[in-house]
């Protein structure tokens, strides 16, 4: 970058191309303008513009992305999805979606000679016989866990900062749908290898569908193709749902999500120069592009490393699924934990009467409760608008501390789901603390109410406390504290260095053209005239090398 800017002859692509004129034409802007048509990039853009009018899309390059870490969460989710698709395609080249039983002859010695499903055998093959397959398979699984996690945390960010308010209610709802589909597809994928643990999970899923009044048994029969486990048709069905149908819906919704984002532009936190009518930050091209491409590789790198170094779902230890077998400490992936916990602490309230059975002990925690959860998620923007009566357009985000009620409610909600999640480990906890299951069960029945209440109250207090603290708009400045000969301390403001306080400048529109600066002021590349330019200034100009003598 600095080289391009320094060298006057550089006529390359990208940002450099706008300085074409500088090299060829000298100082006049007219000359610069003619110089444009010299570059190959220019001609390529022209070619495309003649046909597609790409020139009119320049404002997209200027799209501003606010510089705040919390805006990365959605991107992490997006890149996890990209990784899921890439690794998933790799897996589907080797995976055999069939529950047909075969005798295992593969690389994993302890299972040789045993009857296993083709699905299970092919997953073992991916793990042990396809070179690089183990890493990719584990990466796929890790990416699924990170995907759902990133969506959930991203959603919390939107919730706590009021990012769902008008005009972004629709995008919030698209986001809620994405969370739901991510969980569903995770469950489907998790079930594909047809190992003992995931098969047991399928059995539970079947019973959950069965519990729905009136249509439950029909639904279960149609989905699974009969009585559990459904004559082997479940594998092709779940497979095609998992690798094609749900991912396509997710991809389309992500498209809609981003389309709305571009159309409405980012919301932003309050700050200097930021209003309801603008967005302040870095432009898509080139700053955000570089950063986000970097993030993509970081996410991929982390997931790849997890895939290589941290074992996940070692199905060879669980064994193939047999409906009459079961392992101890059956646990689903983390994002199913809240439902598992809810099923565990639910009392055994089955309703029978009028010749019918309503299995409330399953229906309530596993159907109605998640149904209610997602309904509430969908409705929240409208519920809040009704409560507050606030129907204005909001492009400036809230700091959570200034919305103590919403923040307290959100924190209580997070605590609630987290407690349910912990309740999915009742057996493990009972073992670990050497207490009876009964104690653990009743503790959780109590905690699931108490924890959210306490967390809510404490959060409310903290918000009030924080909100009462004075805030200044002044950016922090470094000072130099020195002791004089007499032992007196004096404090001086340190001179400002670039990067100390980036926000002290007023924001400007993204420049279309970047012109020459210091270099053109009669200086040549190496013979910098140190006398004429203050040293401090030299430091600040990109690409101007300081020559020390």
């Amino acid at each position: 970058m600095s080289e391009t800017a320094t060298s006057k002859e550089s006529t390359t692509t990208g940002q450099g191309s706008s300085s074409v004129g500088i090299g060829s034409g000298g100082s006049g802007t007219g000359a610069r303008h003619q110089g444009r048509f010299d570059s190959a990039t220019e001609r390529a853009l022209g070619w495309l513009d003649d046909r597609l009018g790409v020139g009119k899309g320049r404002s997209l390059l200027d799209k501003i992305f606010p510089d705040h870490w919390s805006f990365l969460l959605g991107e992490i989710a997006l890149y996890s999805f990209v990784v899921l698709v890439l690794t998933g395609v790799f897996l589907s080249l080797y995976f055999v979606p069939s529950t047909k039983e075969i005798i295992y002859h593969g690389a994993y010695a302890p299972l040789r000679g045993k009857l296993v499903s083709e699905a299970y055998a092919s997953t073992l093959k991916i793990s042990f016989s396809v070179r690089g397959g183990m890493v990719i398979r584990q990466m796929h699984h890790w990416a699924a866990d990170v995907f759902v996690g990133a969506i959930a945390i991203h959603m919390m960010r939107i919730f706590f900062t009021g990012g769902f308010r008008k005009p972004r209610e629709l995008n919030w709802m698209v986001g809620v749908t994405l969370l739901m589909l991510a969980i569903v597809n995770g469950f489907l994928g998790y079930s594909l290898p047809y190992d003992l643990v995931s098969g047991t999970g399928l059995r539970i899923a079947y019973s959950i569908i069965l519990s729905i009044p009136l249509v439950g048994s029909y639904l279960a029969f149609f989905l699974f193709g009969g009585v559990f486990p459904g004559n082997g048709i479940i594998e092709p069905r779940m497979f095609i749902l998992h690798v094609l149908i749900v991912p396509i819906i997710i991809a389309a919704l992500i498209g809609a999500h981003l389309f709305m984002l571009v159309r409405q532009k980012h919301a932003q936190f309050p700050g200097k120069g930021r209003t309801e009518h603008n967005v302040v930050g870095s432009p898509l091209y080139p700053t955000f592009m570089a950063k986000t491409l970097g993030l993509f590789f970081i996410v991929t790198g982390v997931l790849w490393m997890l895939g290589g170094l941290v074992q996940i779902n070692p199905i060879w230890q669980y064994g193939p699924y047999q409906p009459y077998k079961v392992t101890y400490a059956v646990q689903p992936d983390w994002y199913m934990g809240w439902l598992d916990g809810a099923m565990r602490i639910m009392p055994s309230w089955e309703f029978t009467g009028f010749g019918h059975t309503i299995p409330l002990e399953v229906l309530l925690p596993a159907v109605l409760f998640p149904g209610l959860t997602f309904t509430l998620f969908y409705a929240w923007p409208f519920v809040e608008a009704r409560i507050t009566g606030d129907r204005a357009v909001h492009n400036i985000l809230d700091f959570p501390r200034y919305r103590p009620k919403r923040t307290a409610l959100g924190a209580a909600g997070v605590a609630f789901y987290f407690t349910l999640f912990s309740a999915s480990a009742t057996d493990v906890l009972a073992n670990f603390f050497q207490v009876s299951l009964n104690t653990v069960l009743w503790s959780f029945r109590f905690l699931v109410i108490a924890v959210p209440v306490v967390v809510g109250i404490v959060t409310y207090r903290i918000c009030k406390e924080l909100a009462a603290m004075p805030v200044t708009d002044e950016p922090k400045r470094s000072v130099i504290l020195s002791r004089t000969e007499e032992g007196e301390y004096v404090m001086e403001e340190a001179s400002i260095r670039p990067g100390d306080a980036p926000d002290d400048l007023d924001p400007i529109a993204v420049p279309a053209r970047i012109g020459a600066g210091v270099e053109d002021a009669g200086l040549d590349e190496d013979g910098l005239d140190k006398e004429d330019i203050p040293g401090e200034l030299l430091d600040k100009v990109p690409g101007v090398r300081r020559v020390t003598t």
Partner: protein
Amino acid sequence: MNRETGVQSDGGRIHEPVHVPGHASGDRPIPENHGEVSDSPLPLVALDDPHLRPAAKNVRHTERWIAFLIALAALGFAGYGAVYWQGGQPQLEGLTLGIGLLAIGAALAAWGKYLLPRGPFVEERHDMRSSDVEREQMAAAVIDRGKLVMRRRGFLGKMLAGAAGILGVVIAFPVIRSLGPLPKLALDKTNWRKGSYLVTIHGRKIKEDDLEVGGIITVFPPGYEGNAMDQTVLLRASTSPFTTKAGRETWTPKGYVAYSKVCTHAGCPVGLYQEQTQQLLCPCHQSMFDVLDGAQPVFGPAPRPLPQLPLMIDSEGYLRAQQPYDQPVGPGFWERS
């Protein structure tokens, strides 16, 4: 720009005024460099404008770091190639390519964050709401043209709706109905018949001396070994018959007792037997069933006892079912009475 002096060293170039939104009261500035490229020179920002400075305190230093990261990435990538070449090994594969990807990611992110213009930059936001005129025109178009379609043709409209309704119903046949059989009695009945032998997963018939007291085994009706609905636990709780529930006195010959293995909660196999407490435990959500008391649930979310299979011992000493289960096995469902 030199902050202290406020001097803009733009080398005598044209410097378009820079808009600072929020400063002009109320009226929102339109950035001049927005919109179509015309023949007139574009607004220009001088290279030494403070907004274009990199955020890095020390550019050279940052560049060296980035160079290091890119070199590291190249090493990582090459390392992965080498590991793969050698036959592959998950941990090493993860480490090499992982480091490579992380390093290249960090390099790119640092490049964007520290070496590119630090801004801040601003973009104007346009209201989503259209002008009143546009809104009215849109509404008028939709409503008026819609009326044009339906005017004095209400009957056609109703016919259309009717036909679409029929399509909606019949399309459900291939889309949904074809997916599976109707439940009919499949959930109510198992494959246990009067007199069925009790066989193991390998099809071996169980004889009266096969289990010690405290022994447990999973059994099926012959021909249905491994079947998810028929699976049954056979336990030997004592050497002589005992009563699990009134009216079931003959169901436990020689202390053998058989219960459906399908948990009445959500259908997991009730696989764990605790001999001291005489309880069957379901590992899924920890329901516990009392073996001596007709598998009555004593803990957990299971709502009903496990159905009991009436047993008998035939003249050759084989264990057999006196009768099929007297009720549907497994979790509850709407049609279960």
